[in-house]
């Protein structure tokens, strides 16, 4: 009973329970605080090793509670291509995160700092390789080699092989026209009256001419014969006219094809001249040859970066669509949207600060704000800048600033500018090909430029080299001429324009170096170009002659056909309507005269007989 009373007197609050709760919460927090660091270190390290394929080392990972964040100390990532050096390393990276946003599924990094990020540093001990070495393919060399080859004067065969020759096309066209028209003419010639037909007309004509008309019946019979002859001749004349018409059409077509073929070599020459710097060797840009490799390298790098970032931008779009699909599947409840004052994208770095030490030992500070790939959410562009940290007190400076925006359709746009002052360029190799090696031993570089990306790249850069000293070696007359000119240059400008898509950009490089070099080149190269001009024109002429010769036999045959047709027409002229009508008229007149004479004679005879009777009594 006493025990029951004691139980009943127990209050609503359970102090022991509160103690257990405190222990559970405290234990969990302590385990998280002390265990999370090593666990994260292990996960991060193995993830990087899997992603990059080489050993990763991290000194320690720490979590901080207020503000909630993570700190990575001493990270070294081995270069899988060179195990004795690090791909990159940094002393410390820290990120402070917004926990509430994290629970809402959004990674909002308030501040991301990377201290002393260095690339390609030597390792104290060689790292391990975790995956087979990736095979790197170089596909950007063709453009460079094109630049290199552009200095060579091509042969006539190379020119003719590259050019899409109109002469050859027109020669083929003439052959086709000839074959087609020959067939048409031959088809129509089947209707040409034969020699026998003409002989038959001759015989009939002679017979008609020699026929004697004694009576009206004879005349009618003659008329019928002539009518028949007229009809036969008319039919054959019509056939000849048709053949002649076909001949004229075919002749016209052939004449057109011939005249086009004859004009083709001139057109070919004109086209070749437009495509190649035959008339003006100064169009050869030496600056492309010297700086093409460097610029192509930058473009290739930019394309690599873009290709790396693109999947993240696209993945975000796919994730959004998937979320929407899942939401549609919810059958219970409806989400009411209220205006959110502060919207965040799925991930964002509010403030980014990276101190980078470049391979040449120079320190750069990379800063960013609002770094994310869903700019449309906050309708704010992401800002970035790179600045040279001048530690030795020199006047050298580099500033790059820009911004980018990713819209709802994941379209990326960016614009920015850069400026460079008093940067020393020493021992820069500009050309290492077989014909010529060139090194810029010393120069002071200034420059500025702008860039913009919206569907395609639009960028212009101006570089000014001062106090230039160059040296090199060449193994040809042209290379030595180039070197001779370049070593005398003390300053020059370089204007670079890169436009179009990253995969196939249009690069324009111009420099006042070109003018200096081209005047020297022009003298040397113009003689070679003149000779080439004569050779190429002769080759085109030969092609024309060959084509004309191959068709000359056919042309003669075609011309003889005209004589044949003219002859046939001439033959038919004899049996023209006028001649036949005149023949009938003559025969008719002869008959009438004959009848008249006969009638007169009969009248005379009758009159004579009558007079004889009257004058009988007079003794006559």
């Amino acid at each position, binding site marked *: 009973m006493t025990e029951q009373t004691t139980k009943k007197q127990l209050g609503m609050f*359970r102090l022991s329970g509160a103690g257990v*709760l405190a222990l559970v919460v405290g234990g969990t927090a302590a385990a998280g605080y002390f265990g999370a660091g090593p666990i994260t270190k292990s996960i991060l390290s193995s993830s990087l090793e899997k992603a990059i394929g080489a050993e990763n080392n991290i000194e320690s990972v720490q979590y901080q509670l207020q503000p909630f964040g993570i700190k990575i100390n001493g990270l070294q990532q081995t270069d899988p291509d060179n195990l004795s050096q690090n791909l990159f390393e940094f002393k410390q990276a820290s990120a402070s995160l917004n926990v509430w946003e994290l629970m*809402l599924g959004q990674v909002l990094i308030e501040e991301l700092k990377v201290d002393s990020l260095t690339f390609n540093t030597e390792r104290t001990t060689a790292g391990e390789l975790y995956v087979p070495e990736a095979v790197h393919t170089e596909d950007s060399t063709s453009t460079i080699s094109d630049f290199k080859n552009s200095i060579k004067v091509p042969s006539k065969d190379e020119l003719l092989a590259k050019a899409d020759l109109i002469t050859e096309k027109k020669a083929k066209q003439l052959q086709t026209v000839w074959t087609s028209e020959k067939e048409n003419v031959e088809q129509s010639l089947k209707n040409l009256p034969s020699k026998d037909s003409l002989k038959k007309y001759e015989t009939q004509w002679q017979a008609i001419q020699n026929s004697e008309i004694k009576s009206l019946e004879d005349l009618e019979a003659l008329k019928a014969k002539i009518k028949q002859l007229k009809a036969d001749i008319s039919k054959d004349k019509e056939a000849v006219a048709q053949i002649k018409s076909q001949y004229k059409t075919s002749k016209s077509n052939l004449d057109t094809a011939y005249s086009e073929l004859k004009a083709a070599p001139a057109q070919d020459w004109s086209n070749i001249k437009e495509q190649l710097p035959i008339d003006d060797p100064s169009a050869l840009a030496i600056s492309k040859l010297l700086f093409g490799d460097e610029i192509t390298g930058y473009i290739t790098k930019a394309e690599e970066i873009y290709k790396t970032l693109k999947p993240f931008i696209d993945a975000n779009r796919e994730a959004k669509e998937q979320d929407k699909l899942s939401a549609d599947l919810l059958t219970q*409840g409806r989400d009411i949207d209220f205006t959110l004052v502060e919207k965040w994208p799925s991930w964002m770095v509010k403030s980014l600060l990276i101190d980078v030490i470049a391979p040449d030992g120079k320190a750069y500070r990379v800063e960013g704000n609002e770094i994310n790939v869903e700019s449309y959410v906050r309708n704010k562009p992401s800002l970035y800048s790179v600045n040279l940290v001048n530690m030795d007190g020199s006047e050298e400076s580099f500033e790059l600033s820009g911004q980018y925006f990713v819209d709802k359709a994941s379209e990326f746009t960016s614009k920015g500018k850069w400026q460079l002052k008093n940067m020393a360029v020493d021992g820069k190799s500009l050309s290492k090909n077989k014909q010529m090696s060139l090194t810029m031993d010393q120069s002071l570089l200034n420059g500025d430029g702008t860039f913009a990306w919206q569907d395609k790249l639009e960028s212009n850069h101006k570089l000014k080299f001062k106090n230039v000293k160059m040296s090199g070696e060449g193994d040809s007359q042209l290379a030595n001429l180039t070197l001779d000119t370049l070593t005398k240059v003390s300053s020059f400008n370089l204007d670079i324009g890169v436009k179009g898509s990253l995969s196939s950009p249009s690069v324009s490089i111009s420099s006042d170096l070109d003018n200096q070099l081209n005047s020297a080149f022009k003298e040397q190269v113009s003689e070679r170009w003149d000779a080439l001009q004569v050779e190429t024109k002769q080759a085109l002429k030969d092609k024309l002659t060959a084509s004309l010769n191959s068709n000359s036999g056919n042309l003669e045959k075609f011309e003889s056909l005209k004589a044949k047709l003219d002859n046939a027409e001439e033959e038919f002229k004899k049996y023209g309507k006028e001649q036949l009508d005149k023949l009938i008229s003559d025969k008719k007149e002869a008959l009438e005269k004959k009848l008249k004479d006969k009638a007169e004679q009969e009248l005379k005879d009758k009159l004579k007989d009558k007079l004889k009777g009257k004058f009988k009594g007079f003794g006559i």
Partner: protein
Amino acid sequence: MITLIAKFLSALNSETRPSQIAMAIALALLIGFNGVVSLIGLLVIILLFVLRVNLSIFLALSAVFTVLSFVLSPLSNMLGESLLTSASLTEFWTSLYQTYWFRLETLNNTLNMGNLVLSILLFLPTYFFSHWLIVKYRHSMMDYVNKFKVVQTLKASKFYRMYLTVNGQ
């Protein structure tokens, strides 16, 4: 089901205070309607540690109230819809939407809002009604119910004995 009835009978017939059983029922209502993974769920778990409530009843009725919340979901949805779309409350909801806990709870969802409001509204009535019912039962019905053949059969069953063993009674 037998276990559930066994638990009920055991608790009702035990010397546990009616308030402890009533609080367990009311807290089960909150969990059943709002789920464990929520701020309300967290609050209930803390209360379970701190308050002396009947855990058996709580666990058994949590499942019952979860089922009940599904049954009442059209009503909850309607309630949430009318509250969240009320023009006079738009400003209030918008200001709450700026807070993390509101968005974490997805209280802008009509069903979640309806469940929360309904469970809070029913919390005190459930507690007091349960308390009254238990007191009433113990005073006037317990002896009478215990005489039922079905109850005696149940008490004699393997499940009931097993339950008592587990609960140490």
